[in-house]
């Protein structure tokens, strides 16, 4: 298993596709680093720098030439926009209460209301839940046909994956246990 993984990694290094991937990663990292640097100089930022004024940005390899303090035409001064690359914490909401649609959730309907205060989600209220209709989990024997039963028997079919209870955190306390990644080419 380890041998085939080593062979796989070795064959990756020999292939030109890896070189292309590495080049693309370096490119994106350099570009991303430049964008982050620009944003750090600009609080609040006037517009998404990366989207403007960059001729053929994808393949050129050089950072955009825009001056951070001179927004290009078409952008509004004083508005704050967020770039997709960054964290979800930069998204904000308008204050108020918003009720979602009644949603079918297998067992009945669910409807929730989101409460926004100071631009952040502060509460979720469940307006309608299946139990409102007195549809409970107590299921009597005469309400459904008898389900099929069988004695379990060891099987020898060829399988790809096993599902069953596993050891949890006591046994694997330090982050994730060594994972086995198989990529069959």
């Amino acid at each position, binding site marked *: 298993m380890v041998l085939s993984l080593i062979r796989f*990694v070795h064959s*990756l290094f020999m292939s030109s*596709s890896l070189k292309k*991937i590495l080049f693309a*990663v370096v490119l994106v990292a350099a570009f991303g680093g430049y964008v982050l640097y620009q944003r750090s100089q600009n609080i609040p930022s006037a517009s998404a720098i990366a989207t403007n004024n960059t001729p053929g940005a994808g393949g050129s390899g050089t950072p955009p030439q825009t001056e951070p303090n001179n927004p290009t035409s078409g952008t509004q001064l004083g508005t704050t926009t967020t770039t997709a690359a960054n964290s*979800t914490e930069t998204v904000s909401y308008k204050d108020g209460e918003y009720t979602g649609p009644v949603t079918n*959730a*297998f*067992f*009945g309907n*669910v409807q*929730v209301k989101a409460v926004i205060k100071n631009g*952040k*989600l*502060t509460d*979720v209220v*469940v307006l309608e*839940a*299946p*139990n409102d209709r007195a549809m*409970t*989990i107590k*299921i009597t024997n005469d309400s*459904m046909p008898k*389900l*099929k*039963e*069988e*004695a*379990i*028997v*060891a*099987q*020898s*079919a*060829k*399988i*790809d*994956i*096993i*599902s*069953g*209870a*596993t*050891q*949890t*955190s*006591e046994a*694997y306390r*330090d*982050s*994730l*246990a*060594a*994972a086995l*990644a*198989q*990529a*069959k*080419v």
Partner: protein
Amino acid sequence: MGMPITVEVVDPYVTQAALDAVYDYFRSVDERFSVYKDTSEITRINKGLLTREEASTDMRSIFRLCEETKQLTDGYFDIRKPDGSLDPSGLVKGWAIFHAADLLDRLGFQNFFVDAGSDIQVRGHNTEDKPWAIGIKNPFDQTQIVKTMYLGQNEGVATSGTYIRGQHIYNPKAVQQGPITDIVSLTVIGSNVYEADRFATPAFAMGKEGIRFIERINGLEGYQIDKHGIATMTSGFEKYISS
């Protein structure tokens, strides 16, 4: 969390970078949601160092989904433990696997599985171009398989079980009755691993009636094994047992 992760991608254009992205994602989920980490966000909330309003977007999403699941299961799903702390891992696991599979999907992969603590999301087909063959472990002899399921429609599978030493599942509405013992394993197949996983534990907490709960839900099938080694399956389960 803290469990083994296995990712297998069949598509020949898979890269180490793609696999690394999946593991990095699981690592970040663990950093946020593991109740065994002193610095995780959930631990800080449980210690009162962080309020739920101050929590991250992901954490608040999870709380919302847990509340919804609690309503749907009439309280059999409950992230509040007997000691009063919150542990959302019963939902986070399936949610995280689902998002990891989505990550691979967005990278263009079509045939793979993601397995975390033996809850599994499959996509496409296996290396022989056939549905993924998943074996259910024998609760009484973990070297054996007692049932094989064939999944070829991007389903998810989750198994709740209590046959690992030290693991117990309680009915959160009747903790004083002690752990569930009349059944030892419940495997749920859903349209995706998030749905399968979030219903597997509360169904188990219902004991022998759990399989009937799964039967009542459209889109879920189940295979339950009781303490005597008798299995009960939902009426639609048999469609998964022939390849």
